């Protein structure tokens, strides 16, 4: 385990940023944090987490896919892909690290999405253990260990120091690159903090939330649950939950005519939107209830069914704090689980 005094954290950032682009949570003017590029003077946020998840860095909200030039009846397809640059994402919480696995199963399954894959291959993920989880956290529900986050490198921040441990080859390389700044250390301080945090985790209001009622093969059982009617009643049908969610990956592909060519781009889409499934001659999800159900069934039933039981929710709590009407997956799980 390597150790660095927090006083020197900016030296570390400077060293990392020298040959790789470094992204880390930074406070914005409204008080919330956002993953931003580090530059001299950038201050690492103390916030528990960002509003937008780090999925942005692999799967940006909008992304140009290709361009077309048209001339008369002819079309030219222009591949505008570029290999991603090497970059480091620093300070990723355990829940968000897990979200990358959820996204990987979609984008890296055949046929591989080259846009996502390129960024994924060039990224080093430095995770950060939690020490002050919020009441909206429920990562333990999905078997995520907030005090032992995964990622290429795991980090623990105490009041004075930050500790690093490599988990992968990429991680070893990363630690080697900052070896001069860090010193070898035992894990006493880290273990102490882990024990403290573990106690808090047990006391979280959502600590008792379980996935017992969910998982692959539960479609029939849950399909007609009254919860969908009841909880979707006042759903605004906005995309907040989807857009702040680290695991939501539905997208739309659209064309933009620039006047001198056409850009085909993709952007995030939301199953909560009424036109998500609208076709020229109909829509298979006509009411908000159906759309609402789709979102939760996808995360809690369909996705695990296709991915060996892995849920497509990581309990980060973003939707809990951001939904305009405070409706969220925890409430849905509580209600269905409680019906048992």
């Amino acid at each position: 385990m390597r150790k660095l005094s927090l006083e020197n954290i900016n030296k570390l950032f400077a060293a990392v940023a020298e040959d790789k682009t470094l992204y880390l949570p930074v406070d914005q003017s409204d008080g919330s944090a956002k993953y931003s590029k580090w530059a001299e003077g950038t201050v690492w946020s103390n916030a528990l987490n960002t509003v937008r998840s780090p999925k942005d860095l692999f799967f940006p909200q909008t992304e140009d896919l290709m361009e077309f030039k048209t001339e008369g009846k002819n079309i030219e397809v222009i591949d505008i892909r570029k290999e991603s640059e090497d970059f480091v994402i620093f300070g990723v919480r355990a829940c968000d690290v897990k979200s990358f696995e959820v996204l990987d199963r979609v984008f890296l399954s055949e046929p591989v999405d080259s846009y996502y894959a390129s960024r994924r291959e060039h990224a080093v993920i430095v995770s950060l253990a939690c020490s002050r989880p919020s009441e909206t956290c429920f990562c333990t529900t999905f078997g995520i260990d907030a005090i032992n986050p995964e990622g290429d490198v795991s980090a623990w921040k105490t009041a004075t120091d930050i500790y690093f441990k490599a988990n992968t080859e990429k991680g070893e390389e990363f630690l080697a690159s900052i070896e001069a700044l860090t010193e070898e250390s035992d894990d006493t301080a880290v273990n102490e903090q882990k024990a403290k945090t573990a106690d808090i985790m047990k006391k979280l209001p959502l600590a008792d939330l379980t996935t017992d009622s969910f998982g692959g093969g539960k479609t029939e059982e849950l399909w007609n649950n009254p919860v969908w009617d009841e909880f979707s009643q006042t759903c605004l049908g906005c995309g907040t939950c989807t857009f702040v969610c680290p695991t939501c990956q539905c997208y739309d592909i659209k064309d933009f005519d620039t006047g001198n060519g056409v850009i085909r781009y993709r952007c995030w889409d939301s199953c909560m939107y009424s036109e998500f499934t609208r076709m020229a001659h109909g829509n298979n999800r006509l009411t908000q209830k159906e759309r609402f159900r789709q979102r939760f069934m996808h995360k809690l039933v369909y996705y695990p069914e296709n991915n060996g039981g892995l849920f497509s929710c990581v309990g980060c709590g973003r939707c809990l704090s951001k939904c305009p009407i405070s409706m969220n997956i925890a409430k849905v799980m509580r209600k269905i689980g409680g019906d048992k």
Partner: protein
Amino acid sequence: MQKITRDQLITKAVELLSNGTVSAVLGWQKGEFDYDITPAVFTTEEEIKNNFVYNDFCGANFSKYLVAKTKKLEGKILVFLKPCDTYSFNQLLTEHRFDREKVYAVAIGCEGMADVVKLKNKVDGIISIDYKDDAMYVDTLYDGTVKVDYADVLAERCINCKSKKCVAYDELMGEDGEVIDSARFDEVARLEAMTPDERFAFWQNELSRCIRCNACRDACPACTCEKCVFDNPNSGVENKAPANSFEEQMFHIIRAYHVAGRCTDCGECSRVCPQNIPLHLLNRKFIKDINECYGEYQAGAEVGSRAPLVDYTEGDLEPGEVFERGDNNA
């Protein structure tokens, strides 16, 4: 003034439901942590008794729900309206968006609602909240019980409350208030006094956070188009994500413009924004301009009034003169 309590509202709701006046109740449903309250439709006494809450976090404006909820409804729906909600209620009636006959409106006096974001900035790990007369006592994960003054977490829209008068109701609970001479345009004036470069920087910073979740639009009681231009593939501007700063600006300019003269300044847009963009400052700019150029106008103050942007007088200011006016003010 005595605060309206949860029990009073429950009693009222149960009374109206059991005597058949209404068949459903639009109210607030409790959540996990006392502040995460969801609007809900209650149809039984039991549901109301178990789940109905009313506290400082019941900020959601119910007026817009009436558009959808009255459509297929048999009988009447009971809706609780805070003073600012009554303005939206009137505005929707002016625009014939729902059937007044299907609604039983109970207006409730309001002392202002709390802002969750403000509270969370003060207190970490909120487990539950006890509302006492002098302050809220927040039970937390880390700091035991923390006392938080109501004034410290009062929502911006409530600090600058424009009116505590209920302008529409079938029944009033508590005392009616008065229209307030608020300082709500001060922030707009502060921006107007800036140089264009400063203003541009200010709005770039704010709008660049927009993730186009459409929460502002979907929560807005004035945004009741059956199909929004930004959802219509034939409009040429449909998009689900702002591709660049132009699209961020366009969405918010057009949205604010479309509700100009109809916006009652209820503040829902800013409340629901997950990125804390002060969207109300766009709407208030229009309200301020309209007041100054075409005479004082409060959307929703009465049913049937003509919105300033679908009206004119022969002596209106020229667009160029509007700027000159601004210069004189600044």
